């Protein structure tokens, strides 16, 4: 088992280096650079100012040297400073992590809580009206653009509160950590968690349904049925447990993909999280920050995938570590 994990971690090294090279090249292919962005927003770009800025940020050094710095820095856990704000990348990311993480976890909870029961019910009553409705709702969740859902959900809250209490209400727009003021904090994160969670639950529910359907046709379930075991028992004891394998995989993988959902949702709800920071870093052409964020996402992706595989194997004794 340890050898397997070690092996997988070793395989992750080329992935990380590849991602590093990709982000490094991609960012430098974007015309202009952070100096042009910084000086350009005020409309006073002159060649001397740009050169000065390049020198200050070390952008006048050779590309090879810059790449070397980046990789060595990453390997030694030093991400450097953000070219935009001049603050350390670690600080920039650390201030944004809590809100994003909170929403990601809440969204996962929402998704799992909705998806697994509904997916199971849907599978047990395949092609009934109930199944059709559940599937329709699920697919609608996948089909609706998430920013649209976000904008609409705030509007609905505003309109409903206006109608009910005579004054429009919406969640606060200044973030406070959960430990400082739980209620304030939850009222901020609940809507974004629901909008992300809806899409997430839709994906998970479909997976639960098809995994359940597959398992229900397995021989051992038929045998159990033939033995006259209670349907309830069959579902809980045998089917659900085995159907959970692909679902767990999906939840894990989707969790790693959440960052993509956060990019748009954090904009809609004006949350100062990782997703928004990511868009800003790309738009400001802040190489160091973008590079660090990409490496972070890729690392999370690799670790989650590994965790899912280990969990998978642990849940299913048929799978051996090879």
């Amino acid at each position, binding site marked *: 088992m340890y050898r397997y994990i070690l092996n997988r971690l070793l395989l992750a090294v080329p992935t990380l280096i*590849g991602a590093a090279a990709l982000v490094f090249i991609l960012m430098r292919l*974007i015309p202009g650079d952070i100096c042009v962005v910084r000086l350009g927003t005020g409309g006073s770009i002159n060649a001397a100012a740009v050169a000065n800025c390049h020198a200050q940020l070390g952008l006048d050094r050779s590309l090879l040297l810059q790449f070397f710095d980046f990789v060595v820095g990453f390997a030694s856990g030093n991400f450097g400073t953000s070219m935009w704000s001049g603050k350390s990348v670690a600080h920039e990311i650390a201030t944004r992590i809590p809100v994003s993480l909170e929403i990601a976890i809440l969204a996962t909870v929402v998704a799992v809580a909705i998806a697994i029961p509904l997916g199971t019910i849907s599978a047990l009553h395949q092609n009934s009206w109930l199944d059709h409705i559940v599937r329709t709702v699920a697919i609608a969740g996948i089909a*609706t*653009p998430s920013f649209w859902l976000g904008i609409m959900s705030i509007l609905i809250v505003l309109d409903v509160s206006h109608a009910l209490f005579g004054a429009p209400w919406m969640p606060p727009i200044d973030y406070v950590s959960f430990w400082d003021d739980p209620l304030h904090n939850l009222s901020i994160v609940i809507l974004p968690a629901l909008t992300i969670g809806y899409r997430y639950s839709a994906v998970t529910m479909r997976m639960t349904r098809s995994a359940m359907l597959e398992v229900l046709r397995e021989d051992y379930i038929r045998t159990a049925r033939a033995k006259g075991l209670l349907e309830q028992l069959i579902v809980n004891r045998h089917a659900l447990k085995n159907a959970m394998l692909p679902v767990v995989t999906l939840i894990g993988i989707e969790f790693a993909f959440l*960052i993509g959902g956060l*990019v748009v949702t954090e904009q809609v709800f004006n949350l100062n999280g990782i997703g928004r920071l*990511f868009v800003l870093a790309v738009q400001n052409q802040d190489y160091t920050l973008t590079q660090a964020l990409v490496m972070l996402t890729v690392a999370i992706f690799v670790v989650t995938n590994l965790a899912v595989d280990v969990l998978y194997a642990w849940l299913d004794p048929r799978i051996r570590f090879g």
Partner: protein
Amino acid sequence: MTAVTDDTIAVRRSWHDAALGFCRRQPLGTFGLAIVVIAALAGLSAEWIAPYNPTSNDFEAMTQPPSLAHWLGTDQFGRDLLSRIIYGARTALIIGFVSAFVGGFAGLVLGVGSAYFGGTTDLILQRVMDVLMAFPLIIMALAVVAIFGTGVQNVIAAITVPLIPRCARVIRASALSIREVPYIDAARTSGFSHARIILRHMVPNVVAPFLIMLTAFVGQAILAEASLSYLGLGVQEPTPAWGLMLQGGAEEYASTAPWIAVFPGLAIALTVFGFSLFGDALRDAIDPKLRER
């Protein structure tokens, strides 16, 4: 001659039966297919069925609610929303299909190739796919658009690249299981060319998951364009495009002139919905494990 004709009829009848059977067994899927067909027809015949020019401004008719003259109302520039949605179907489907097919086929080639050749080729290709897979989608799209600008073809490129590894991964998994089958080895040893073995034996066996992925990709590509639009970097004015209509409309007029935001939103949701329903049904129909007995 007659024999051939009989054959053709037989083939037709079986297709016909299969289609009818599909409709009977998959009412939701049929509904989805109907939506897709309607969207496709709208996109193909936009010139003939759109009541107005989708790009011409009419300052006498700005932000008008739905009426007999403008069935779905007009937008900020007085343009007819129905006409823009009809033309937008074309943009959406071009983006959806081109991204899905290019991304899908690239994934198919890489996936099958990776599985068939195995060894170092597989190892290297898989690492490349890992990198693309782990790279945040929207960030890559943002970078691609920032590099090349916002033309329709650039937006397509931005959406296509991230689809490739996802397809390749699934196809490779399917292809791997075929590769181990003895007749592939037999074919190899009897000196058949790689191309022949791949095309004759491996590709047909991964067609099912491939088709399912394709239908899913079309919907995902349409949604991805909407997300890019929200960040301001999707298809641009004056091209009629749903994501673009939603971006300006949803942000500014959701409250004061909701029709500007609602109809393009519905168009996107319905079309993606259609593709997903159809894709699900297709999977149920193709995948024998899920087929009802």
